[in-house]
């Protein structure tokens, strides 16, 4: 620390410790999370807009009954496939139902189906990926062979097995989507871990006796965050769209109820005659993905120590 004497004439005057600590603290104030987010807001407006968009989506889902006069299952066979008009902002679907209403009600299912499995498979995939990449040897082979099996099993068959054993609720949709997605995440995170495992600072940490689990948590995991955010945002749309193929097997949302994936698939054959049936939910999914993507990027820039080096 900073003791020690000056030139001979001032040997006795050893500055007291508090003053130094106070001075040192000016060097780089510890940035609380709130401050970091504040800084993100100023520097990255897109992330703020995305957070707002996500909030709007959630509010839309929650207050759907208030926002639209129509019921989302009420069919009007006289008014099928009507183009967007004053009465129906986004037009009506093949059953004459109001698409805006179904979009709002559908967002309840699709937002959950998009985010929850993506999150679960991210957590499961990252944990197993880092463990297998870092541990190597037997654990690595076991986890990777399990991943190979999960990647190889036809997902439709897996979905049906889950439905007929555990029932057709939304929870089982999440379970199926997670089981299908985690293997991909695990393999990519494992490749990141292999790369990070040999960097100087990880070997340094190992040399001074840091326990394996701490190294994984403190050194490897933070450096996987950027890739994790990318994988998370990529899994959201694929989960939303796969949900509709599960519904055809009887798992999860059934026909008159609405979800974005179901709406797009139902609109498939009308793509040339009534394109809004596909484009409206398609754009909704894209807006959701863009929002999570920009928010993810924004969070990464703030949280990642690399990025904000002066």
């Amino acid at each position: 620390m900073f003791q020690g004497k000056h030139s001979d004439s001032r040997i006795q005057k050893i500055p007291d410790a508090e003053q130094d600590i106070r001075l040192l603290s000016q060097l780089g104030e510890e940035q609380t999370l709130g401050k970091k987010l504040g800084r993100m807001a100023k520097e990255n407006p897109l992330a703020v807009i995305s957070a707002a968009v996500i909030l709007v989506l959630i509010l839309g889902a929650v207050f759907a009954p208030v926002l639209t006069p129509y019921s989302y299952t009420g069919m009007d066979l006289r008014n099928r496939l009507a183009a967007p008009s004053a009465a129906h902002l986004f037009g009506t679907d093949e059953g004459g139902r109001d698409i805006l209403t179904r979009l709002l009600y559908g967002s309840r299912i699709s937002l959950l189906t998009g985010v929850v499995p993506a999150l679960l498979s991210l957590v499961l995939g990252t944990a197993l990926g880092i463990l297998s990449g870092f541990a190597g040897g037997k654990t690595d082979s076991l986890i990777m062979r399990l991943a190979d099996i999960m990647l190889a099993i036809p997902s439709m068959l897996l979905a049906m097995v889950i439905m007929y054993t555990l029932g057709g609720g939304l929870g089982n949709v999440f379970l199926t989507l997670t089981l299908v997605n985690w293997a991909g995440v695990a393999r990519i995170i494992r490749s990141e871990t292999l790369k990070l495992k040999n960097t100087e600072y990880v070997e340094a940490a190992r040399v001074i006796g840091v326990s394996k689990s701490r190294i994984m948590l403190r050194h490897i995991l933070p450096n996987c965050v950027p890739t994790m955010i990318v994988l998370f945002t990529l899994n959201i749309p694929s989960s939303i769209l796969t949900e509709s193929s599960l519904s055809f097997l009887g798992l999860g949302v059934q026909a008159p109820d609405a979800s974005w994936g179901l709406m797009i698939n139902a609109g498939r054959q009308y793509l040339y005659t009534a394109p809004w049936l596909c484009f409206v939910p398609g754009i909704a999914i894209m807006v959701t993905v863009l929002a999570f993507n920009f928010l993810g990027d924004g969070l990464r820039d703030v949280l990642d120590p690399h990025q904000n080096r002066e």
Partner: protein
Amino acid sequence: MEHNILEIDHLHVVFPSSKGETSPVNDVSLRVPAGKTVGIVGESGCGKSMTARAVMGLIHAPGRITEGEIRLCGRDLRKLSEKEYCSLRGSEVSMIFQEPMTSLNPVMKAGHQVEEVLRLHTDIPESELKQRVIDIFRAVGITEPEKRYNCYPHELSGGLRQRVIIAMAMICRPRLMIADEPTTALDVTVQAQILRLMKDLVSDDTGLLVISHDLGVIAKLCDYVYVMYAGRIVEESDIFTLFDDPQHPYTKGLMDAVGSLRRDAEVLSTIPGVVPSLAHLPAGCSFCLRCENGSDRCEKELPGLIQTGPGHKVRCHLMKEAGQ
């Protein structure tokens, strides 16, 4: 007057940040005469590396040069297009970076990384490239150069990596070489070899700019020295005057901190206080807070560089013009 390899006049580098603009390089002017080794010394964060990066045009975004001129052998670097600057880097001016452990591409063989410079700037036939690299390796003191050629960076020691980086910097005989803390990361024995090697690099039509916080390195290598503090040059003089008669309080403080075998002080002295953060620099002399005889004039009014002797300038109100 011998011609200068490098001339920097009133260089300003500005970094916009959340707390307003900071300027790590503030009105810096310096010369590297041909055949000479010039040093910049100062505590870390005083802007010496930033000055070197400014010369190479490698300032990280969002920083940018706002004022000043940088002339290399008479060519103003700030007017060059990106393409011209690229053809200049590595052939006319090259830089040895600070951290040998991470300055080499981990997935490329050492030999290939050096060969790349030749491939970029010369039209030496492919067959001869390997031999040229092996020759330069031997010149920088790398043992078993053929084997090292095929090694990857993680298979080399710190000293060897630094020698590869030096080989990379000198292989095209650049007119100016910049060494940013060349020996900081090395142990003392290897440090001496590297310093001797760099001494021989300088020939009569090339220049060497050495950046270090280690006065020992500066003393061994440099002919002329600039002392920097908080983005500004506070004192400049030839090496002997600087060590014999340091005039700026900060330079004196540095000299005391080094301690020398001549004086038997058990405890090395330090300069009280801490380098002020660039965001809130005092209006006057940035060293005033830590200066023993700092007066309020020092605080309010920025002293200019006063010529106190032949080739010796000091930025301090207490100094008197030479001859007064």
